């Protein structure tokens, strides 16, 4: 067991490998570090690659997303990789109608469909296409449909038999099952006479027919914006305050610390919810709400570091030599603070993205049609029984991104200073 701890860290003696590391350039240092830090190096390496990939996707979503995230590109609730079914037109055997192009113009022709199927979309798309054809050829008149929606395919076919509807549009597999029950009806082929490729979607479609993958990719952009903006804002406010409080001390320090501790001790999400609710729904307000949460973290760390550094000999020396406070702060204390702050920043971004997703999951802050991971998760709950892919992938995306940033922070902690205390 004694061998588990490597060279017991005696503050007076610098280990050989560290000496070696100091002697080479940055790149070599990074690669050589792998030998010394082992698995931790891998943690940081893998997570940096993930973070870089994520950032590229977030900044250039249009390169990666094949569809517009707000547009209906397919039938609703299509599962990943599933091909939409072919819709056919079903007409009476002895009738004169063979296609939608045979419908009388400018009259609303009753067409029966089953609810919750893409049949109605297919029928209307075809009607629009024919109307456009007519207009392009210089003619007048529109093909108009009166869609009659039924709970089951059988009821839809019944209404055609009864003469209430001129035709029905249903999926070909559904009609195959029911052909025997409806001898007076026949299929007249695909609803659309234009050639169409049926496409599947790698992660499926959501409840309004939007491509889940494209929404995920565009959601990355929102996550990055929120995460980075909030973290930078916290940084910009928290670090100077911490420096000031640690350096000046006294009443300012005590007052500030009291306020910061109050915020820090209070459940963060609830504070963010309250702020977001007050300010109203907008992305800027979300950023403000999250930024407020993390200011105390920066403040405390920086203040602690400042208090420590203040007591160092070289600072006292500088002071006795007549250096101004600004100089001491900037040149001596601030550089000591940077390593810890850098690590916190990466973990902070992760937390900010997590909190942001939580806020939009609860319905606060972002306009509901934004392609955002939290919003997609919230909407997906309703379909938990029928469409598992709606909640699985957005959550996975959040997890991977947060994991990447957190792992990077974790690994950096171990590498920079194994003794660094975490909060």
């Amino acid at each position, binding site marked *: 067991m004694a061998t588990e701890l490597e060279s017991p860290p005696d503050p007076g003696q610098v280990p050989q490998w560290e000496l070696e590391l100091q002697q080479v350039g940055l790149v070599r240092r990074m690669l050589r570090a792998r030998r010394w830090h082992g698995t931790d190096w891998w943690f940081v390496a893998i997570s940096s690659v993930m973070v870089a990939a994520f950032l590229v996707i977030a900044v250039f979503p249009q390169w990666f997303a094949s569809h517009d995230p*707000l547009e209906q590109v397919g039938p609703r609730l299509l599962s990943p990789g599933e091909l939409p079914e072919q819709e056919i037109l079903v007409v009476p055997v002895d009738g004169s109608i063979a296609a939608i192009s045979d419908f009388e113009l400018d009259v609303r022709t009753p067409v029966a469909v089953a609810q919750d199927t893409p049949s109605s979309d297919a029928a*209307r798309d075809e009607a629009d296409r024919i109307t456009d054809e007519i207009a392009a050829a210089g003619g007048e008149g*529109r093909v108009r449909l009166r869609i009659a*929606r039924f709970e089951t395919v059988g009821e839809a076919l019944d209404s055609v038999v009864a003469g209430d509807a001129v035709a029905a549009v249903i999926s070909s597999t559904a009609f195959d099952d029911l052909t025997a029950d409806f001898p007076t009806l026949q299929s007249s082929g695909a609803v659309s006479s234009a050639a169409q490729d049926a496409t599947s979607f790698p992660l499926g479609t959501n409840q*309004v027919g939007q491509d889940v993958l494209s929404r995920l990719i565009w959601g990355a952009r929102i996550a990055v914006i929120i995460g980075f903006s909030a973290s930078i804002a916290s940084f910009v406010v928290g670090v100077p305050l911490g420096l000031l409080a640690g350096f000046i001390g006294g009443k300012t320090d005590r007052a500030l610390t009291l306020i910061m501790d109050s915020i820090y001790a209070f459940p963060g999400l609830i504070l963010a919810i309250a702020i977001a609710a007050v300010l109203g729904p907008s992305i800027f307000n979300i950023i403000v709400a999250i930024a407020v949460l993390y200011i105390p973290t920066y403040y405390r760390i920086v203040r602690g570091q400042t208090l420590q550094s203040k007591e160092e000999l070289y600072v006292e020396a500088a002071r006795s030599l007549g250096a101004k406070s600004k100089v001491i702060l900037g040149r001596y204390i601030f550089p000591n603070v940077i390593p810890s702050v850098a690590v916190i920043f990466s973990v902070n971004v992760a937390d900010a993205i997590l909190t942001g997703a939580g806020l939009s999951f609860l319905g606060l802050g972002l306009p509901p*049609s934004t392609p955002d991971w939290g919003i997609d998760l919230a909407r997906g709950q309703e379909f938990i029984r029928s469409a598992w892919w709606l909640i699985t992938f957005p959550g996975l995306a959040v997890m991977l991104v947060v994991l990447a940033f957190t792992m990077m922070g974790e690994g950096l902690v171990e590498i920079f200073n194994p003794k660094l205390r975490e909060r």
Partner: protein
Amino acid sequence: MKSKKTWWRVVALLVALALIAAACSSDDEPTGDATTTTAPSATTAPTTPATTTPAGPKTIIIGTTDVISSLDPADYYSTADWELGRLVNEPLVRFQPGSNSVLEPGIASLPVASADGLSYEVTLRDGLVFGDGLELTLDMAVEQLNRLMNADLQASAPNQVGDVLAISYLESIEAVGDNTIRFNLLGPAGFYPQILAGAPFVVSHPDVYAANEINLLPDTPLYGLGPWIITDITPAEQTVLEPNPFYTGTYPAKVDQVIVQRFSTPSAMADAVREGEIDIAWRLLGAQAADELRSVSSLTVETIPQAPIRYLIVNHSDGWVTADPLVRQALAAAIDRDELSDVVFGGAVTPLYSPVPPGFLGANEAFEDAYQAPNNTLAVDLLTQAGYSESNKLQLDLGYPPEHYGVTTADGVLQISQQWEATGLIDVNAIVQDWATYVSDCTNGVAFDVCVLGWFFDFPDAENYLQPFIEGDGLGTMVLCPSESCGDAVTTGTDPQLNQLLLEQRAETDPDRRAALLGDLQDVYAAEVVTIPLWLEPEFIIYRDGIVGDSSLPSPETLNIGPDFEFIYSVLDVVG
């Protein structure tokens, strides 16, 4: 140190406990208690054999997500209020369960109109006794009904129901003779008997409801003249009803107990009915959940003919872009209701082409006749006439609430925006605003060009779908806030025919002539584009095998619930 071992033991104990509980409970029958039994219930996989119900008291558990807003009849507002209210208290007259057109006597006879149409008289039945034994007298009845006419009382009430249904139509309510109540109207109103069938027109217990004080949440047991007594209320959770032994009306209770269990979300209720924890799921289930439950073999899912509507309020105030009738008409022409229904709801909602839903007297399809929407050619024409072009697009602010009408509202708004923008001449700015401020901002014409709103009737008549939007100077309270405190919105140039036709149809007693007038009124409404009707919301009732309604009444397959959404628990019975 021992702490590690202790922790380990505690954790292991808890995990073991939980696992044991899970293992045992998963075989549980949903009905575990001997005193409450329901129809034999089948859980979904794994299937268990149906239990035989021992001979015992029959209880039905109804699940709902409706909230009780007030249990004072002078203040009944929400659907839950009306539902419970008409069970504990028997109304003067009522609609036959399952219909919204056949009136039948309640504690009083059918209303008889006077010759000049300015008053209605009803005659009280004899032998009416409250659930605690108190006998009803005529003066008692008139006094309790006059709580609706008491302006001070209504002002202190949260919902001002009396303002809407009584004070605005009636001059007074008085006792005549031994057992007759007369309602004196301010002006002729042929549909007033239908208003009398509403839940607030009940005679409530005088000891519980004082003449000048609103009692929102009375103590239990709560007695009335109706077939049920409320024996227990756990607010926002559970209401328990038991039969009233003194009831002498047409719809006595058939079971021994009804528990109304409130759920906070529709999905929780859907799961409860799926698992057999409740017998009936009613109100606000949603199309998706209803669809998923259709495939469960032990459940019946029925759609109630629709009554609540969604529509767009259009801002007619001067200075707003929609004050221009050409713009309004273009918007009406560019809407594709079928696409809205299919894309956003999977076809579960029915497109609506008139402010009055189909099935009501005089309803037509005025908007379809006028615009043949989606008609982008017409829309572009109108907009170009109004002076808009590719370089000078119409800028529109479209407001909507985030979750009051369900989360699908946002999807619907997105579709509508895309439809309007497809004309190439409109830029839509969708604005989401929390419900708390939304309604007044929407209806007072100072915040949005267009905004989404819903409507459910106060009484089942075309009047109630038109009057709130047309009144007085041409636009009713729902389109323009009448109060000085609402701001300086001014409207000019609304077609005077609107108000004229409204008054004419109201005074008309012959149904055919009235229908013709209503048709004309809807046509003018569409030309003026007072509001843009969008769709009808379906409502679903789901119940387990073994629960039945009354087959001698209309629509037993929906447990005798008609288009007015009145659910009378007395029709329910448990078989098998």
